[in-house]
């Protein structure tokens, strides 16, 4: 925050820091809308949850743990911040059953106040990005689409259905992602995902992207059944398995004599041709 320029006196720095700190505290109080006393309780609750659920892989100070076999059991959390903690915990990706398991979206292990407490505690372990609050109302859908196509679709696909990365990795589908999870993921860059800082995609742009991702859950499908919205592969499948099968069935029906019993014979017909 404060540049250590030579001309700046120490007292000034202190003063600026004090003002900023006060502002931060007030802001966070306003955002969390909780009395100050609850902060201490939350801290204690978060610590308690952390020490039961996370400590075995991530260490007491969130420094990460290397097992006796030399393999890393869990990474450091000191740079994941509120955004990383919120993303992993609210999507149920953490905690894992074992350190070999791949994190996947599943049912949350922590809900409500517990979730908030644990996220806040992990955030307090180091310096990491905040999990932004998203304001979808009034967010620019078209702008979000542009940003999504520029930054997200390469991995998550234009339809948000996810996609394959190399060596068994995959970008998950975004169709079940909640707004704040999306925002937190962009700030934290979990797993293989790059980080999108607030300097790159600022608050309003972030809201726009999130709104577009939310839109992709149920976009307009004026053409009918969406068949995945990922283009030619499912389309080719439908063309062959429905279109071509139907056409061949029709041809087979037309081309074989019989199904319909002949009702009227043509009078001057010499007789049935085929023996």
């Amino acid at each position, binding site marked *: 925050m404060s540049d250590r320029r030579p001309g700046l006196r120490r007292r000034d720095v202190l003063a600026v820091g004090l003002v900023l700190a006060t502002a931060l505290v007030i802001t966070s109080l306003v955002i969390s809308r909780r009395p100050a006393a609850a902060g201490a309780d939350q801290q204690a609750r978060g610590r308690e949850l952390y020490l039961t659920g996370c400590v075995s892989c991530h260490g007491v100070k969130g420094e990460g743990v290397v097992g006796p076999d030399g393999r890393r059991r869990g990474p450091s959390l000191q740079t994941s911040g509120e955004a990383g903690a919120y993303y992993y915990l609210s999507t149920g990706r953490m905690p894992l059953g074992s350190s070999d398991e791949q994190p996947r979206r599943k049912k949350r292990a922590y809900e409500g106040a517990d979730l908030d407490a644990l996220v806040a505690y992990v955030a307090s372990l180091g310096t990491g990005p905040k999990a932004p609050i998203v304001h979808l109302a009034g967010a620019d859908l078209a*702008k979000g689409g542009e940003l999504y196509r520029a930054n997200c679709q390469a991995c998550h*696909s*234009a339809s948000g259905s996810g996609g394959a990365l*190399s060596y068994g990795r995959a970008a998950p589908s975004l169709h079940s992602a909640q707004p704040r999870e999306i925002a937190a993921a962009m700030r934290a860059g979990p797993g293989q995902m790059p980080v999108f800082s607030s300097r790159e995609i600022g608050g309003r742009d972030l809201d726009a992207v999130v709104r577009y991702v939310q839109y992709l859950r149920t976009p307009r*499908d*004026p*053409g009918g059944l969406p068949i995945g919205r990922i283009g030619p592969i499912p389309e080719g499948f439908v063309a062959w398995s429905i279109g071509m099968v139907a056409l061949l069935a029709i041809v087979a029906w*037309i081309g074989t004599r019989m199904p319909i019993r002949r009702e009227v014979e043509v009078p001057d017909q010499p007789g049935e041709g085929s023996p």
Partner: protein
Amino acid sequence: MSRTTRARRAKREPVGRWIDDRLGVAKLARTALNKVFPDHWSFMIGELGLYSFVILVLTGAYLTFFFRASTTEVTYAGSYDALRGVRMTEAYRSALDISFDVRAGLLMRQIHHWAALLFLASIVVHLGRVFFTGAFRRPREINWMVGVTLLILAIFNGFAGYSLLDDQLSGTGLRIAYSIALSIPVAGTWITSLLFGGEFPGPDIINRLYVIHILIIPAIITVLLTVHLAIVVRHKHTQFPGPGRREDNVVGERMWPTYAAKATGLFFLTAAVVCFLGGVFQINPIWIYGPFDAAQVSSASQPDWYMGWLDGALRIMPGWEIRAFGFEIPNPFFPGVLLAGLTFGLLFAWPFLEARVTGDHGEHHIDDRPRQRPVRTALGVATIAFYVILFLGAGADVLSTTFGLSVNSVLWTFRFAVFVAPVVAGSVTYRLCRELCRRDGLPMASKVSWGEIPSRLLGRHRPPDASPHPAEPDEPMPTHDELV
């Protein structure tokens, strides 16, 4: 019945008489009406292609009234709110307008696209029918080649068509096509510069593709379709073996009235299937893909199915290329140009290659049953297996997402499968054919030893004795095998 018929005839006569007085076509018309169509459903598959083409022309003509093949930059202000205010080309905007703001426009667009997929599918199935029944043999080699040309034109026009819209997916496809053309040794840079009007994306390509897509290729297809059908009329249809069916006759149903009615019915039913797909299944949702931007791409980018084998070949090709003396033959040349050239070259040459190998240069109007030609059938199935694996390769990323596999493992699997699957499919087919023949007590084609094939292909083969080789269905021979 006779009274009403006479009444109708009296009514009809003046018009017919009027025409015949001026053109003298009564005899010709009667010949046409009496043309005999063999009685087997598989002979109507080609008609599916013809009718799909008619639907393509009709819907395509409608779409031209609204589409603008221009790369002028505009700002979208139509009724799709998720793109409002976005900069895009006029081509893409007009495609969006067709989809959202032209009443029945989206239906026409979707029917057009589904009809294109089914046009190609019909052509391929029809080609398979002709191949597996040996209906390409003398005197039909010319028509086989006309048909293969139509297939190539249809593939190219399909690609040109979906590349016009200038959405992200089509632009990516166009860029790949550009790079494949660029990889052609010596001439590649010139070809692409002349075709695109410069470096990719080039100022003119959309406009040029439009002319090619709506005028040049459809005109050639129309001419060749006419030739294709005229030759069929000239040759008369082939027919399957059966009682009373000989090389010198055609047994079946006359054109008029029954066959004409059935064919008309088939046209309407084909149109019904395509319209059903067009109305119910969303195809190519370009509004999701967004406008083309050379710096953007979406995962799961694939071409339409009839180009899938080429895309799959590009994917499973290992990272090899040839560089020497400062010149290079880039990687995409091998799967993109060489494979395509070999595919269509072999297709064109097949009737002649087969005749050389079997030494059978005679006329054939009776079709083979596929099981009686085990080697041809096995080769055909092996070829299909080869292209199916390539096609699956194009969906490697979609497959690995769907089944939770590593895309690298999937591609490695295909790198092997593309060689193994044809061998397995071919030998299973071969055995199956022999088994079926033995069960039915059918004679099989005569034998040619593998060792003779090269000399036969080069035309230096001298048969040891003039008598045809007898069929030997049961003999297990390690060094000899049946060919065609």
